[in-house]
C-alpha cells in the first residue's frame, strides 16, 4: 500500500515535470472575481453581468490566454452571491482576494460597490474595482483603483430627452421605480426636461421590486393627459406598466429608464409582439449595433445561457477584455495599480473584437457610447449612438471614427465628463 502511494506520487511528479519541459513555460491560472446578487431580487440583473464575464473568460482561454514574459496565463471566473448585502459583498471580496488570489473584482450594485471601495486600496490586499454602476455618486469616492463600466445614466437622460423632444412630445408623466437608481433618474430627468422647456404633468413613483399592479398610479398619471410616460425599473415590471397603461387606454409614447431593456421586454413580457410597444424610446435593442461582433456574441450568448442577451452582458464582456489587454500591456497580472495605469494604452478597442468597444478612459470612467433606440409601427425603427464625452467637434469626429459603424452617431457633450 505504502509503495503504491509512493509510486503514484512519483508518477504524478514525473508527468508534471514532463509537462513543464514540453510547454517550456509556466502556465498559470488567474482568477477574475465577481460578487453580486445571484439570488433574491436583482438576481436576474446580477446574472446578466456575470454571464458576460463568463463569456469573456471562456473566449480568452480559447484563444490561449495571454502571455507575459514567456509565462502563459489562462483565466477563470469566480462568482459569489452577495444578495446586495454589503457585509456579504465585503466577505466575498476578501475571499476572492485572499483565497482565490483575484486582483480584479466586478460588482454591479452601488450599495455594495461603495463598501468595496473602502477596502480595495488597503495595503497588502489591493484589488481593481470594476464597478458596473452608472450613478455619478461613484465619482464622490476618491479611489484610484476603480473603473466604472457603463456610461453615466445622465448620458441616457440627455439622449432620451433629445429623441423625445425631436418627436414633439412635451408633456411628460412620470412613473419610475423607487430605489436609489430610480430616485436619481427621476430627479435628473425632471431637471433636464424642464430646462428644455418641457412639462412634467405628474410624478408618481412606484416600487417596481415589490409591486405588480400599477393601475392606481397609472390612473392618476394618465388623468393629467401626458404626451408620453417616463417609466422603468427592472425590465419585467416595466413591461407590465406598458401593458397596464395600454389597457387603460393610453396611446402616447414611453421613455424607458436605462435599466429597462426594450428588446428584453418585447421578448419576455410580450412574447415578441411589438404591437403594444409603439413609440417606445430607450436603450437600443442589442442588435441595433449592426456589427458582426455583436451578432456573433448575441448568438453564442443565447445558445450558452438560454436567456436574453443584454447590454449589461456585452459591456462586462468588453470591459473584461480591457483588463486582459491592460495586463498584457502592464506586464503583470497581480498589480492592480499597474493594470489600471495601462488601460489608456490599450484603448480604444476595436469594434471587430468586442460587441461594445470602449473608446477611452477618463479617470475612473470607461468611455462607451450610450446607444438609444426607438420602436415605431411594430418594429425597431431608429437607433442612435450618443457620444457624451467629446468636448468639441474635432474630438467628436475622432471618436466617431473609432465607434461601431452602421448606426447613426450623435454628439451630446455631458457637463463634467468631457475630454478630447
Amino acid at each position, binding site marked *: 500500500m505504502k509503495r503504491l502511494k509512493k509510486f503514484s506520487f512519483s508518477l504524478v511528479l514525473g508527468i508534471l515535470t514532463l509537462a513543464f519541459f514540453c510547454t517550456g513555460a509556466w502556465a498559470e491560472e488567474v482568477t477574475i472575481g465577481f460578487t453580486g446578487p445571484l439570488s433574491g431580487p436583482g438576481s436576474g440583473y446580477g446574472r446578466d453581468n456575470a454571464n458576460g464575464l463568463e463569456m469573456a473568460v471562456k473566449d480568452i482561454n480559447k484563444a490561449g490566454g495571454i502571455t507575459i514574459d514567456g509565462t502563459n496565463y489562462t483565466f477563470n471566473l469566480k462568482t459569489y*452571491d452577495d444578495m*446586495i448585502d*454589503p457585509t456579504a459583498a465585503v*466577505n466575498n471580496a*476578501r475571499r476572492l482576494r485572499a483565497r482565490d488570489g483575484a486582483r480584479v473584482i466586478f460588482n454591479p450594485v452601488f450599495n455594495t460597490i*461603495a463598501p468595496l471601495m*473602502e477596502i480595495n486600496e488597503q495595503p497588502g490586499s489591493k484589488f481593481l474595482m470594476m464597478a458596473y454602476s452608472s450613478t455619478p455618486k461613484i465619482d*464622490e469616492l476618491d479611489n484610484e483603483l476603480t473603473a466604472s463600466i457603463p456610461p453615466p445614466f445622465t448620458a441616457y437622460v440627455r439622449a432620451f430627452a433629445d429623441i423625445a423632444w425631436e418627436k414633439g412630445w412635451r408633456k411628460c408623466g412620470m412613473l419610475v421605480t423607487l*430605489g436609489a437608481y430610480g430616485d436619481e433618474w427621476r430627479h435628473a430627468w425632471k431637471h433636464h426636461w424642464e430646462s428644455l422647456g418641457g412639462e412634467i404633468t405628474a410624478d408618481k413613483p412606484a416600487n417596481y421590486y415589490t409591486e405588480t399592479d400599477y393601475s392606481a398610479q397609472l390612473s392618476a398619471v394618465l388623468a393629467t393627459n401626458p404626451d408620453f410616460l417616463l417609466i422603468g425599473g427592472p425590465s419585467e415590471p416595466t413591461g407590465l406598466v406598458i401593458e397596464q397603461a395600454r389597457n387603460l387606454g393610453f396611446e402616447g409614447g414611453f421613455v424607458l429608464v436605462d435599466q429597462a431593456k426594450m428588446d428584453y421586454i418585447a421578448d419576455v413580457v410580450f412574447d415578441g409582439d411589438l404591437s403594444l410597444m409603439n413609440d417606445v424610446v430607450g436603450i437600443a435593442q442589442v442588435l441595433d449595433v449592426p456589427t458582426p461582433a455583436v451578432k456573433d456574441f448575441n448568438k453564442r450568448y443565447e445558445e450558452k445561457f438560454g436567456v436574453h442577451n443584454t447590454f449589461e452582458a456585452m459591456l462586462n464582456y468588453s470591459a473584461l477584455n480591457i483588463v486582459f489587454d491592460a495586463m498584457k500591456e502592464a506586464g503583470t497580472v497581480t498589480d492592480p495599480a499597474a493594470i489600471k495605469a495601462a488601460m489608456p494604452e490599450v484603448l480604444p478597442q476595436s469594434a471587430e473584437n468586442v460587441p461594445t468597444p470602449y473608446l477611452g478612459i477618463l479617470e475612473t470612467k470607461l468611455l462607451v457610447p450610450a446607444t438609444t433606440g426607438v420602436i415605431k409601427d411594430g418594429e425597431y425603427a431608429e437607433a442612435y449612438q450618443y457620444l457624451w464625452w467629446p468636448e468639441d467637434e474635432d474630438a467628436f469626429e475622432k471618436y466617431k471614427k473609432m465607434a461601431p459603424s452602421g448606426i447613426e452617431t450623435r454628439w451630446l457633450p455631458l457637463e463634467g465628463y468631457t475630454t478630447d
Partner: protein
Amino acid sequence: MFTKPIHTKLLYLVILAAALLLPWYVPDAYIFQIVTMSVIFAISTSGMNLILGYTGQVTLAHGAFFGIGAYGVAIMTKAGISFWLALPASALISAFIGLLIGLPTLRTRGAYFAIVTLCFGVIVWIVSGNWIELTGGHNGIFGIPRPSAIPVPFFGEITFFTQTGMYYLSLAFLLIVLFALHRLVYSVFGLTFMAVRNNEPLADSVGINTFTTKLVSFVAGNFIAGIAGGLYAAIIGAVSPTAAGYMMTFNFLIFVILGGMATLSGPVVGAFAIPIIMEFMQFLEDFRMLIFGALLILVIIYFPMGLVGGLRRLNEKVVAWRQRKTTESGHASS
C-alpha cells in the same frame, strides 16, 4: 450565589485568550473579515437576547435599531463629529427611539408584539430608503470616516485603518457588552427579567412592575443594537437601507435561537457559527439558500434550545436527576 464552576471559568479564559491573540494566527484577510463582522453581530445579537431570550418579548425590530445606530454614526461622522462621540450618541438615540416605541407597543403581547415591532422595523427600513436629505436614500451614505486614532502614552497611538484595529475595536465593545450583560443577568435585578418571561402574573403579584421591566430590557437591548450598528457603519464604511432591513432582524433572530436563547454565550456562538457555516456553503452556489433553509428547519426541530441551550439543558437534566436521586435516598433513609 451566582458563581460558575471552575472548569467553565477556565474555558472562558481560554476563549478570551484565543480572541485576544487572533490577529497573530488568523490565516488570511477573509477569515479576519468574517470574524470581525461576527463580533459586531454578536454584540447586536446579545442585545436582542436580552429582550427575546431573558425577558421573553419577541422583538422583530432589532435590525431597525441596529440601522438607527449605523445611520447615526454615518451621519454624525460625515458631519465632522468624532466617532468616539458619535457612537455613544447613536446608541442613545437608538435607545431613546426604543423607549418611544416601547411605551405603546409593549402593551401588546406575544405574536401581536412581534408584528407591531416588525411593522416598526419595516417603517425604519422604508424611511431610511426615502428620506434622501438625511439618509442619502437608497444609495445610502458612503465614505464614512474611520474612527480617529487614540493616543496612548509611551506607545504612540492606536489607529483603525487596518483590519487588526477594527477587530480590536469591535472585540473591546463585545467584551464590555458581555461584561455589562453578565452583571445584569446574574443579579436579582436580572432575575426580574426572567420572572416576567416565566410567569408574568406572579411577577406582578410579588411587586415587580412588569411593564417597566420589559421597557428597561427593550431599551437596553436597543442601546446595544445601536452600538453594534455604529461599529458596523465605521467598519464597512458605507450604510444603506440593508443595514436597517428586516433581513438583518431575521439574521439576528436566527443567531439567537440557533445559538441558544437566554444564555450569554448562545448569541455569541450563533453569531459566529451561522455566518461561518454560510461561508462554508458557498460552494453550493444556487443551492445554498435551499439547503440552508432546510437545515434551519431541521436544527430547530432537533435542537429547539439551540446549541448552547441544548448543552445547558443536558447539564440541567443531569443536575436535576442527581438532586432527585439524593432526595429519594434522603427520604428512604429518614
